[in-house]
């Protein structure tokens, strides 16, 4: 069977078994990773999986079944089992389930890729990582780590409404990290970000990161941090680097605007949201500098695609405009419950997982300033960069972040290096205090966004730039 034929037969089997709606995703996925530690390769891994997942609606109950077996009998049985599970759901169901109308879409999409990451010699990948770890060791690291990863996903979607879409998505990323071991504590420096930087591009993206060029600095800064003064405790002006602000966006905006959370569908695990749909279009989320879009069309960004996993074509949409909350991340089922007329943010972590609302690329539009201007106009404060820890409550309000490094800001200039920086706050208060935002946007990739049960790992992108926030509590410690 071709992949489309397998999906079509699974959908038909679900309809024949009583489903009023069904869709099926066939995927072939490959994930190659490599890690080096202290001048040696630590692991080389190549994981491939293939299969089909079928989603069916029977009455008001949803069911989903997945199998790697793409033979005719197996995919038909998968369709039937999805309908059987949907029927069981109806034992504890509401009597209401629907999808917003969607035009049947036929299409293909492939991400841009200049250098196939799976065609690059393993020895070349290994030399790059091993070399960087050796340099970090030579410059002060007690523990030097480096990693790279590549994903390739080929997928075919068929729905009972007539969707027929195939896509190829290639993603890559890499990073290095140096740890210095002190008396009772550790200090870490990383490049380009705490867990690396990722994009929906080919291996040329990893080449551009040029890990080796930053290895010496990263190693020496980790060592230097051990003897740096501790970040002071108190309320101050805070300047955040773009990478840290990207995670701030992810946690305190991206997850908060997920419609399934707002509706309570994730209440028992990921949590809900402080946002109330009745205030969509009027709620003040932050300062007027805060303009956040949901944009899966950004070329090369980690949250980009041609169509989401319900077949909705990628499109840019406002989430926050001039500080006012105006949009959500939605799927066709959650939009129907909420009375909204758009979807487009549903993805599944592989063929064996149910598609659900996920962030795409959620991030800031450029501000009017530069980083240098922000520092120059700050009389006293702290600049923090590179995430080290993150935690936020189940309504996405109360957060605490730690970064690898901070610097004093005095009289418009960066000053002393500080260790163990943290800051804490409440989402809308924090965003309302943003009074300067840089125009120097970089799209940061987050490849480890966890959500759902069974757990799913999502890939998201976050356009971000340095910004300044007033009256922020810093220096929280045990």
């Amino acid at each position, binding site marked *: 069977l071709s992949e489309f034929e397998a999906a079509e037969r699974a959908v038909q089997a679900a309809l024949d078994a009583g489903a009023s709606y069904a869709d099926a995703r066939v995927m072939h996925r490959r994930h190659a990773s490599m890690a080096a530690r202290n001048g040696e390769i630590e692991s080389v891994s190549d994981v491939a999986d293939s299969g089909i997942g079928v989603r069916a609606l029977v009455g008001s109950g949803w069911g989903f079944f997945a199998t790697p077996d793409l033979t005719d009998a197996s995919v038909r049985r998968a369709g039937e089992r999805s309908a059987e599970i949907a029927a069981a759901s109806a034992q504890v169901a509401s009597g209401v389930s629907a999808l917003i109308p969607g035009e049947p879409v036929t299409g293909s999409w492939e991400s841009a890729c200049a250098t196939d990451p799976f065609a690059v010699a393993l020895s070349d990948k290994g030399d790059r990582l091993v070399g960087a770890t050796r340099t970090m060791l030579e410059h002060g690291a007690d523990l030097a780590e480096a990693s790279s990863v590549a994903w390739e996903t080929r997928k075919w979607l068929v729905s009972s409404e007539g969707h027929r879409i195939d896509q190829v998505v290639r993603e890559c990323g890499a990073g290095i990290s140096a740890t210095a071991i002190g008396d*009772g504590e550790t200090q870490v420096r990383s490049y380009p970000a705490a867990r690396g930087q990722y994009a929906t591009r080919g291996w040329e993206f990893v080449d551009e990161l040029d890990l080796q060029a930053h290895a010496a600095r990263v190693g020496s800064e980790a060592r230097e941090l051990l003897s740096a003064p501790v970040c002071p405790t108190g309320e101050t002006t805070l300047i955040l680097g773009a990478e840290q602000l990207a995670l701030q966006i992810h946690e305190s905006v991206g997850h908060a605007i997920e419609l399934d959370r707002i509706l309570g569908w994730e209440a028992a695990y990921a949590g809900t949201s402080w946002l109330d749909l009745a205030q969509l279009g009027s709620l003040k989320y932050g300062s007027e500098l805060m303009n956040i879009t949901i944009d899966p069309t950004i070329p090369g960004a980690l949250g980009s695609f041609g169509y989401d996993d319900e077949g909705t074509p990628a499109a840019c949409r406002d989430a926050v405009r001039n500080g006012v909350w105006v949009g959500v991340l939605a799927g066709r089922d959650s939009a129907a419950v909420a009375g909204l007329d758009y979807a487009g943010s549903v993805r599944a972590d592989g063929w064996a997982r149910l598609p659900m609302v996920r962030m795409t690329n959620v991030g800031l539009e450029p501000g009017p300033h530069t980083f240098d201007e922000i520092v120059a106009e700050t009389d006293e404060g702290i600049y923090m960069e590179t995430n080290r820890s993150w935690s936020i409550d189940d309504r996405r309000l109360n957060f605490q972040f730690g970064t690898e490094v901070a610097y004093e800001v005095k009289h418009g200039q960066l000053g002393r290096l500080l260790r163990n920086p943290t800051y804490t706050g*409440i989402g809308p208060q924090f965003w309302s205090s943003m009074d300067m935002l840089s125009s120097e946007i970089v799209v940061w990739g987050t490849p480890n966004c966890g959500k759902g049960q069974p757990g799913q790992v999502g890939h998201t992108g976050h356009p971000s730039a340095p910004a300044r926030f007033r009256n922020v509590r810093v220096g929280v410690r045990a």
Partner: protein
Amino acid sequence: MTAELDLAVSALDKAAAAVPGAEISVTAGHHHAALTRFARSVIHQNVAEDVTTVDLRIHHAGRTAATSATVVDVSDLDRLVKSATEAVRVAPADPGWPGLALPSAVPPAPALDVGSIESTPADRAEIVGAFVAGAGGLETAGYCRSTHWSTGFANSAGQQASAEAFECGFSGIARHHGADGVARHAPLTLAELDGEALGGRAAAKALASIDAVELPPGRYEVVLEPTAVADIVEALAAAGFNGKLVNEQRSFVRIGDDQFDASVTLVDEPLLVGQAFDSEGTPRQRLVLVDGGTTSAVTHDRRSAAEAGAVSTGHALDARFVFGPYAQHLSLAPARSGEPPTEVDGPLADSSVAGLLADVRRGVLVTEFWYTRMLDPRALTITGLTRNGVWLIEDGVVTRPLRNFRFTQSYAQALMPGNVLGVAGAATAIPGDTYTATSPRWTCPALRLASWNFTGGASG
């Protein structure tokens, strides 16, 4: 020979023929995993999967390659072997290769409960329905899950093993006017999941949380329920007793030191859920990590053990993970009371928790922790929040509900000698996360601790 062991041996033979003289290990696993999820008191996501996967690792001429694939037929196996064979020829040098596990007996797996492994979506829906009913009309959300799996292992050193097992878990909340209560359980059979009792417990917590007040941040004595203690135990497993992190000096754990209060005994018990060997084929065993407050062992795979001059304890994870070897079935020993816990009125999980409150003059009762993240592994300093029920304890009784706190606390310090003021007389098995088909399982009693550093309230 099971179908999975047969598959593993077949892959081993093919790889050995393709790369003569190589060191080869193969794990073949099949699982049927199902999870029924509910929110707003209705089942909204209901999933199942049947998957067979083969993991193949080849070491040859100083190089190592690890490949994995879903396998349906012999062509998939041939493709996997070809991929691994090509990869090992061009892989970077691997001077830290620890060699293969030698043949050794694998302990027997527990007998399977036929009712559990033959359970249907309707059975899970029935448990969910009982939870919803037990919550007495409060809005509910959560999941009921089960996994039945079979694994075969073979390597070119002659080690072969197979095992078959079942596990299940339930987690649910009840909601009332913005207040949530929770109940979780991970018994060994599906029949032991009492949805109605769990729903009643979650509802009692939610109802007792109305009109919560905010308490100033600061250090408070605490009683942590098993669901909260599970977070500490998981952090100890992943970042404390992890042999790789110990080797790298990123952990506070030191074998032989009296690092914990004498009331703390911590044991890994993977055999309870049939995990008889790890991904390197090393037999698992009951492993005492802390014995009466003294650190007695850390967890190793073959690579971390070789670095430490120790032997593997059977804690190797899949090759693609580089977190290091950590225990996923830890049990914190309860105090010996001899009496099984009973349900109690009010917000407490059960009578074993009530027994810890009696001597607390002023403290905080915590149902569970949420979104806990490491600030520094060396001191196991963690920040996070409370969730699903917090109350003030005054003169031995719960007096009023509190709004959630943020905390920043060294877990290691919280359990140091003198800091554990009480251990409950019964432990509850709490299900871990659901990112893998087989879920971690943490068995914990409630704890009374001298001090917990709450660094902020819900309002900031």
